[in-house]
C-alpha cells in the first residue's frame, strides 16, 4: 500500500529528475539536430530552461516545509566477498537543494534569454545552446545528487562543459589555451577529490551520503589523520573548481569564453559547485581540515581581491572579484559559518551574474562603437574590454547602469543590498570563531582571519567603485584619442529587451528585501533560518560590532576609490608607471610563471627524459640484446663454417687426394692394367713367402 506521502515524494523526485534530464535532452537534440531547427533551436533551449525554472519553483514550494527526502535509485551492484556492494544514484530533496535549483535554473534561463540577443550574430551559434544545456544539467546533477560518486561524475561533466564553453571561440588560441588550463587545473583538484572518495569508500564502504549521515549521526567524524586527509582531498576538489589558492589561476583566463557563459560559470554553476560540495560533505570535515579550509579561503579572498585593483579589463576585474568572493564563502565554511557561506553563495550568484551581464552589455556596445568607427572609415583595433577607454556610459545606458549599480553595491556590501546581509554574516562568523578559539586556546593567530576579511572588504569596495567610475562616470575616454568617435558615441544605447530583462531581474534580486525583512541582518530571513546549522561556536560578540566594522570597511575603501578616481584628470596616461607591486598584481602574483617554473617545465622535462629513457635505455637494451644475439649467431656460424664444415671438408679433401692418386694408375692401356695385375700377384706371392719364412 503506497501512502499519499510516498506518492507526493515520488512526484517530487520525478519533477527533480525531469529538471535534471530536460536540459540534458536539449543538449542531445540541439547538438545533433540544432543546425536543422529554425533559429538553430535557441527558442527550444530557452523554453526548456523556462520550464525547468517553473518546475524548480514548483518543487521549492512543495519541498520547503517537508523534511529531507532521499530517493535511492539502484544503479548497479557489485558482488563483494561478504555482501553485495550497491551503487546508488541517490537524490536528496531538501530546502537547500530546492533553492539552489531555483537559483541555477533562473540564472541559466536568464543567461539563455540574454544570449539570444548577445550571441545571435556570432559564429558557432548552433553549438552554444547545447553546451549551456549540458552545463546546467550537470550542475543540477551536483545539486541533487546525494551520492559522492554521482556528485563526482556530475562534477566532471561540469568541468567538461566549462571546457567547451571557455574554449567556445576555439579559433582564438588564447581561448583554446584557457579552456585547457581550466580543465587541467580542475583536474588537479579532482585528483584530491578522488583520494577523498577512496578514503571514504575504504572506511565506510559506501559513497552514499545518506548512509554516511547515518554512520556519523551520533559520533560525528573522528579526529583521525586519515579523515583529515579525506576532508582535505575533497576540499582540494573544491579548491580547483571554486578557484581557491593556489589553483585560482584558471579563472581569470576563463574570461576568454563568451560573456553570458562567464556569467553562468561565475555565478551559478561551476564555481558554486565547489562550495556546494563542501556543504554536502560538511559532516566529513574534521577540525583540522576546517582550519586549513578557513585559512585557504582567507588567503584566496585577499589574493583574489588585490589584483583586481589594477586590472584594466572589465571582465578580469569581475573575475578576480569572483575569486575573492569565493574565498569569503570558503572562509565561512572553514569558520563553521555554514549558513552564511551558503547564503553568500546564493546572493553572490545573483549579483555576480548581473555584473557579468551588464559588463557584457557594455562590451556589446563598445563593439558597436568599433564597428561604427569602421563604417565611418576609422579603422582602429582598440580593446573593447579595456575600461580605460570607457567612461560616461551612465547617461547613455541608464538601465544597464541601474542594474550595474545595484549589483555593484551588493558586491561591495552596502546595507540595503543582498550582499551586505551575507557578507556581514560571514564577517560576524569569522569574528565569533576567532574569539571562540582565542578564548579556548589563547592563540592570537586566529584573529588573522577576521582582520584579513575586513581588509578584503575594503579592497573590494575600492576596486568596484574604481570600475564603476571608469566605466560609467566621467568622460568617454576613447574620445581623447579619437575625437571622431563622438557621433558614434552618441549612438550608444541600452541593449534590446532580451538583454535588458535578465539584467533587470537579477539587479532586482540583489536588493535585501528578497532575502530578509531586516536590511541589516540576514540571520532571521527566510533563507538563512532554513539553512541554519547548529554551530558549536558560542557567540561571544554582539552582532552590531560586526555590522559597524563591515560598514566602516566599505566606507573606507569606497571613499578612497572615489577620491582617487573621481577627478577628471585621471586619464589613461597614469597607467604607464610600472612599479613592481603593480606588475605583480597585474600578472596575478606571477602565478602562471611560477607554475611554469615549478610544475610545467619540470613535468615536460620529465616527459622528455622518460621518452629518452624509453628510446635509449630500454630500447637500447633490447637492441643490445638483439645485436648480441646476432653477434653470437655469427660466431656460431663461424664455428659451423670452419670447424664442423672443416672436418667434413677435410674428409672430402682426403678422399679426393686418394682418388687422384689412384686415378694416376689408369692410363687406359690394357697392357698397363695387366702389368699392375701381375705386379699385384707377384706382391701377394712375396707377401706369402715373407709370412711363410
Amino acid at each position, binding site marked *: 500500500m503506497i501512502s499519499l506521502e510516498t506518492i507526493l515524494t515520488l512526484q517530487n523526485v520525478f519533477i527533480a529528475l525531469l529538471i535534471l534530464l530536460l536540459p540534458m535532452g536539449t543538449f542531445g537534440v540541439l547538438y545533433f539536430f540544432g543546425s536543422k531547427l529554425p533559429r538553430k533551436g535557441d527558442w527550444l533551449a530557452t523554453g526548456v530552461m523556462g520550464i525547468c525554472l517553473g518546475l524548480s519553483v514548483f518543487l521549492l514550494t512543495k519541498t520547503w516545509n517537508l523534511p529531507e527526502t532521499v530517493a535511492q535509485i539502484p544503479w548497479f551492484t557489485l558482488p563483494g566477498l561478504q555482501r553485495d556492494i550497491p551503487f546508488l544514484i541517490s537524490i536528496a530533496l531538501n530546502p537547500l537543494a530546492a533553492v539552489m535549483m531555483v537559483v541555477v535554473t533562473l540564472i541559466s534561463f536568464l543567461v539563455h534569454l540574454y544570449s539570444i540577443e548577445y550571441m545571435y550574430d556570432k559564429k558557432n551559434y548552433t553549438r552554444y545552446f547545447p553546451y549551456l544545456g549540458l552545463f546546467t544539467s550537470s550542475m543540477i546533477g551536483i545539486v541533487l545528487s546525494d551520492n559522492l560518486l554521482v556528485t563526482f561524475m556530475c562534477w566532471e561533466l561540469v568541468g567538461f562543459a566549462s571546457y567547451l564553453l571557455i574554449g567556445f571561440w576555439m*579559433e582564438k588560441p588564447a581561448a583554446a589555451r584557457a579552456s585547457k588550463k581550466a580543465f587541467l587545473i580542475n583536474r588537479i583538484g579532482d585528483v584530491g577529490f578522488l583520494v577523498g572518495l577512496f578514503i571514504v569508500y575504504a572506511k565506510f564502504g559506501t559513497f552514499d551520503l545518506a548512509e554516511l549521515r547515518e554512520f556519523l549521526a551520533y559520533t560525528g567524524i573522528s579526529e583521525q589523520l586519515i579523515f583529515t586527509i579525506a576532508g582535505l582531498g575533497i576540499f582540494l576538489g573544491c579548491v580547483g573548481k571554486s578557484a581557491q589558492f593556489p589553483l585560482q589561476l584558471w579563472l581569470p583566463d576563463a574570461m576568454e569564453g563568451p560573456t553570458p557563459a562567464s556569467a553562468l560559470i561565475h555565478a551559478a554553476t561551476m564555481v558554486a559547485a565547489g562550495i556546494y560540495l563542501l556543504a554536502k560533505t560538511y559532516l566529513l570535515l574534521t577540525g583540522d581540515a576546517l582550519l586549513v579550509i578557513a585559512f585557504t579561503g582567507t588567503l584566496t579572498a585577499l589574493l583574489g581581491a588585490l589584483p583586481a585593483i589594477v586590472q584594466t579589463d572589465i571582465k578580469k576585474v569581475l573575475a578576480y572579484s569572483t575569486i575573492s568572493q569565493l574565498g569569503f564563502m570558503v572562509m565561512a565554511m572553514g569558520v563553521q559559518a555554514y549558513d552564511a557561506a551558503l547564503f553568500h553563495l546564493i546572493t553572490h550568484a545573483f549579483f555576480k551574474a548581473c555584473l557579468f551581464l551588464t559588463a557584457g552589455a557594455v562590451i556589446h556596445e563598445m563593439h558597436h562603437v568599433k564597428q561604427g568607427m569602421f563604417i565611418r572609415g576609422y579603422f582602429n583595433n582598440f580593446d573593447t574590454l579595456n575600461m580605460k577607454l570607457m567612461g560616461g556610459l551612465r547617461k547613455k545606458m541608464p538601465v544597464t547602469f541601474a542594474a550595474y549599480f545595484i549589483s555593484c553595491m551588493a558586491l561591495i556590501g552596502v546595507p540595503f543590498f543582498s550582499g551586505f546581509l551575507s557578507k556581514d554574516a560571514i564577517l560576524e562568523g569569522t569574528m565569533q570563531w576567532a574569539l571562540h578559539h582565542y578564548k579556548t586556546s589563547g592563540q592570537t593567530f586566529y584573529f588573522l582571519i577576521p582582520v584579513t576579511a575586513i581588509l578584503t572588504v575594503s579592497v573590494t569596495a575600492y576596486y568596484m567603485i574604481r570600475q564603476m567610475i571608469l566605466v560609467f562616470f566621467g568622460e568617454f575616454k576613447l574620445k581623447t584619442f579619437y575625437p571622431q568617435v563622438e557621433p558614434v558615441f552618441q549612438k550608444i544605447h541600452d541593449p534590446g529587451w532580451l538583454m535588458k530583462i535578465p539584467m533587470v531581474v537579477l539587479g532586482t534580486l540583489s536588493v535585501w528585501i528578497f532575502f530578509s525583512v531586516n536590511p541589516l541582518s540576514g540571520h532571521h530571513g527566510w533563507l538563512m533560518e532554513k539553512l541554519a546549522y547548529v554551530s558549536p561556536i558560542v557567540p561571544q560578540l554582539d552582532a552590531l560590532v560586526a555590522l559597524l566594522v563591515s560598514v566602516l570597511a566599505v566606507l573606507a575603501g569606497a571613499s578612497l576609490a572615489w577620491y582617487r578616481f573621481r577627478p577628471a584628470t585621471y586619464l589613461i596616461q597614469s597607467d604607464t608607471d610600472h612599479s613592481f607591486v603593480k606588475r605583480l598584481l597585474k600578472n596575478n602574483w606571477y602565478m602562471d610563471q611560477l607554475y611554469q617554473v615549478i610544475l610545467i617545465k619540470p613535468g615536460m622535462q620529465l616527459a622528455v627524459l622518460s621518452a629518452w629513457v624509453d628510446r635509449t635505455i630500454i630500447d637500447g637494451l633490447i637492441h643490445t640484446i638483439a645485436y648480441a644475439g646476432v653477434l653470437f649467431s655469427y660466431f656460431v656460424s663461424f664455428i659451423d663454417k670452419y670447424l664442423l664444415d672443416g672436418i667434413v671438408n677435410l674428409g672430402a679433401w682426403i678422399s679426393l687426394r686418394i682418388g687422384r692418386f689412384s686415378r694416376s694408375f689408369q692410363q687406359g692401356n690394357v697392357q698397363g692394367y695387366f702389368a699392375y695385375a701381375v705386379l699385384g700377384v707377384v706382391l701377394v706371392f712375396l707377401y706369402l713367402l715373407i709370412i711363410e719364412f
Partner: protein
Amino acid sequence: MLSLLIFLPFISIFIIASLPMRRYYMHKVITLFTTAIQLVVSIVLFVLYKPGKGIQFEEKYNWIEMDLGKVGKLTAQYFVGLDGINVSMMLLTAIVMFVGALASWKIVENRKGYFSLFLLLCATIHGCFLALDFLLFFIFFEFMLLPMYFLIGIWGGPRREYASIKFFLYTLLGSIFILIVMIGLYVSVVDPFQSSLSAGITDVNIFKTRLASGQINRSEMVHTFNMLLMKDPANYIPGSVFHTLSTYTLWGYSARALAFLAIMIGFAIKLPSVPFHTWLPDAHVEAPTPISVVLAGVLLKIGGYGMIRIGYSIFPEGAFHFAFAIGLIGVISVVYAGLNALAMKDLKKMIAYSSVSHMGFVMLGLASVTVEGMNGAMYQMVSHGILASMLFLIAGVLYDRTHDRMIDNYRGLAVKMPAYTAVVIIAFFASFGLPGFSGFIAELFILLGAFNAKYTNGLLPQWMAIAATAGILLGAVYYLWTLQRMFFGKFWIRSGITWKEGLYDLDFREKFMLVPLAALAVVFGLFPHLLLNVFSLELKEIIKVILVK
C-alpha cells in the same frame, strides 16, 4: 556455436582464396560479412549467457590421444566454452574485428592476401579467447603471430620490417615462458575422470584420494591440458613439479611461484607493461590503421585475459605473494607511459603510449585482488578495447587524408573538420576517464580496489592508488594538449595547399565505425551492470581462492 565463431573465417578464407584477384570487391564484402555474422553470433551468445552457471556452450572433443606406456596417457582436447571471463572478451573481439574489417576498406595492395590474413587473425583471436584447453589456447596464441607478422610486415609503414620482427620476437619470447609452464602443468596434472576410467575406479573422489596417497600407477594416469582441471589442487600428481606441496625450488623460489612469474612475464609482454612495452609503439606506428585497431583493441587484452585465466586461476598463491611487484609494475606503467605519451610528437605514438598507460591500470587492478580492482581490470580491458579502437581509427582518418601524423604539423583542424573534431573530443575525454564513459567506471574501480586493498587484504600500499591517480591527471594533460595544438586555433598546416584539398570531414563509412563505438563507450559508462554482471561472479570465485591461500 562457438566453433562457428572460430571456423567460419576459415571457410571465408577458402572462398576468398578461390576468387580471382581482380574480384577484390568481393574479398572485402566477404570479410565484412563474415565479421558481421560473428558479431551477431557473439551478441546472441552474450545475451544467452547466464552468469554464475559455470561453463556454457561448451564443445569438447578428444583431439590427441596417445598412450605413452609407463609414463601415462596424453590427451588434448578441442575444448571451447564460455565462462564469465571470456564472454565479454568474445564480444569485444567480434566488435573490434567488425570495425577492423570496415576500416580495411581502403587497403589497396594485394587485397586477397590481406583479407585472407585478416580473417585468419580473426579466427585465431576468437580461438584464443574461447579455448579452455591449454594446448589449444597456446596453439591459437602462437598462430596469431603469423597473420599479424605479415599484416604489419607487408602492409605497414616505412619501418615495417623492423616493427614486425620486433613484435614477433618479443611475443615469441613471452610464449616461451608460457610454453615452459604449460609443459610443467601437463606433467603434473591428471584428468581424474578419464584416469579413474582407465584405472577401473568408478568414483572420481575415490580416485582423487588414492591419487593423493600415491596408490595410482603412473601408467594409468591420463595427463590433460584442461585448464579447468588445472585449477583443482586435487588433480595434481603428488611429488610432481607443480603440486602445491612440491619441494622443487630454484633460487629460493618454489616451482609454482616461478611458474606464476613466468606466466606473468609472458603475458606482461603481450599486455604490454613497462619494461616490456617498447614493441608496441613501433608496431602501432608502422601497422596499417585496421591492424592497429585490432592490435590495441583485442590483442593486448589477451595479455590481461591470460593473466586472469592462467596466472590468477591456476596459481592463486602466486597472485598473493607477488601482488606488490605486480602492482608496482602496473603503477610504473601508468605513470611512465603517461609521461612518454606527453613527450610524443607523433599522434599515433602518443595513442600507443596511452594504451600502455591504460593497460597498466589492468595490472594494478589485478594486483589488488579486491572485488573492485579485479572487476575494474576486466572492465578496463573491454573499455580500453573500445576506446583504443576509436583512437586509432581517429589517427587513421587523419593519416588517410594527409599521410602525416605529426602533431606539430597541424593547427585548428576543427575549422575544416568539425565532425571529426567532435569525435576526437569524445574519444579523448572518454579515454582519460570522463564520467559517463566506460573508462571512468573501469579506472575508478581499479583505483578504489588498489586503495582498498590495504584495508581488506593488505596487499598493496595506498600510495600506489594515489600515484596511479596522477596517471589519470597525466592522461588529461597529454590529450588536452594535443587537442589544443592540433584542433584549436587558426587553421594552419605545414607545407600548404596540397593537403588542404584532401582535408574533408568524416565520410559515412568513418562515421559508421566511430559513432557506434562512441555509443558503446557511453552505454558501458552509464550501465556498468551490463558487463559487470557477466564476469563479477566468476572473478569473485577467483578472489576467494586467492585469499584463502
